[in-house]
């Protein structure tokens, strides 16, 4: 296996791991947000804002992983 093949492999695994991490994180937030909204329907607006904010921050971390993966695929 040459270096670029290893880079593609690393990119694939890295992108997958980043997606798993983001999935767990956003899933936890989403679950908690729904629970919170079910208990206190009047706070839905605030909960939604917190959910989007948290999801955006987690997504940012995942995107760092994706960017690194992309850079690896562009490696020649």
């Amino acid at each position, binding site marked *: 296996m040459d270096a670029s093949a290893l880079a*593609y492999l690393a*990119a*694939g695994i890295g*992108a*997958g791991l*980043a*997606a798993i991490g*983001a*999935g767990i994180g*956003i*899933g936890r937030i989403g679950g908690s947000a729904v629970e919170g909204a079910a208990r206190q329907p009047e706070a839905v*607006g605030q909960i939604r*804002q917190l959910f*989007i*904010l948290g*999801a*955006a*921050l987690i*997504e*940012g*971390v*995942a*995107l*760092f992983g*994706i*960017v690194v*993966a*992309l850079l690896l*695929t562009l490696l020649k």
Partner: protein
Amino acid sequence: MMHLRTLLLSALLLWDLAAGASSGSDGVQLDVLHHVTNAYYLDFTPLGKLELPRILIDPEGVHVFPSTTAALRDGRFIPAEWAEEGAPSGGGGEEAESARAGFFGESRAGGPETVEVTHVGKLARRDGLPVYLDLSLTRHGVFMLLAAALLLGIFLPLAARYRAGIGRESAPRGPWQNLWETFIVFIRDEVARPNLGEEHYRRYLPYLLTAFFFILFCNLLGLVPFGATATGNITVTAVLASFTFIITQVAGTRDYWRHIFWMPGVPVALRPILTVVEFIGLFTKPFALAIRLFANMTAGHVAIVCILGLIFIFGGMSPALGYAVAPFSVAVTLGVYGLELLVALLQAYIFTILSAVFIAGALEEHHHEEETH
């Protein structure tokens, strides 16, 4: 949903890279990245391509060419890649000369549509002189300016109406003013006020509104046929994020800086470590802001191109297969396109709310008596 998009991006990009490599032999080439990256032309593909002006500043002065073709015909400039490949600069660049001749020969043979010219990136001097500044228009630049023009064209007349009292002393008049007031009030009451607080929000509201609408317009212009997404360019998002960065630092109170450089309420031995962490955090926040917007906007477009590209990949295997895949491809593309509309709004909102949160963090006054835990 965003998680799904991330998955889509990674899966489809890799799929496409693999497919592109295998389909190279039978002539079907799909260059996905070419559709989302910046270029020196506007793509109206069935109708043709419009080359954009080239403006170069070098030791001889300012050169303005109406198009890339004109710049290359002029003879003093060659594509930067050729210059890097190293035509002997002393020998008058014979290799570059022959390459240039072949270049125009090919483009003429290919018909009136000069396919090759549009693939030319940066230009360099043939004689090896440096190009100080390349102010050439690119398609992202064009659509960024278009978004800015729309912003001015919509909001200056609106501001004049409010100044005249319509909407302030009376109810806003007409669907046009009502439409924009919905957005403006949303940013003011849902983003600026709860995050920045009653006494500060007025000061930062103009920036937040400008950032929101500029990003929104850039995002939506990318979804218009023949459009390009200026926010799908890392430099555009980096400049936007650096505005937030600068405003955050300027807004910073004494407490903000103290918490970065000498965290109170923490054992002294730990403080240098925290200083390093906090100092890095200063830059990762706007960096994440830039990457998030860029990656989200690029990812959606890559997904659309990839899914549509499946038709041509399968069509390359056998025409019947291509026709069979087409309806599914178009249906899924429509779905992704709808998602893109949502994401265009959502990302503009997220950029704005995170900017507000970062600025609010710098404005915060801490009470250190309570913080000695």
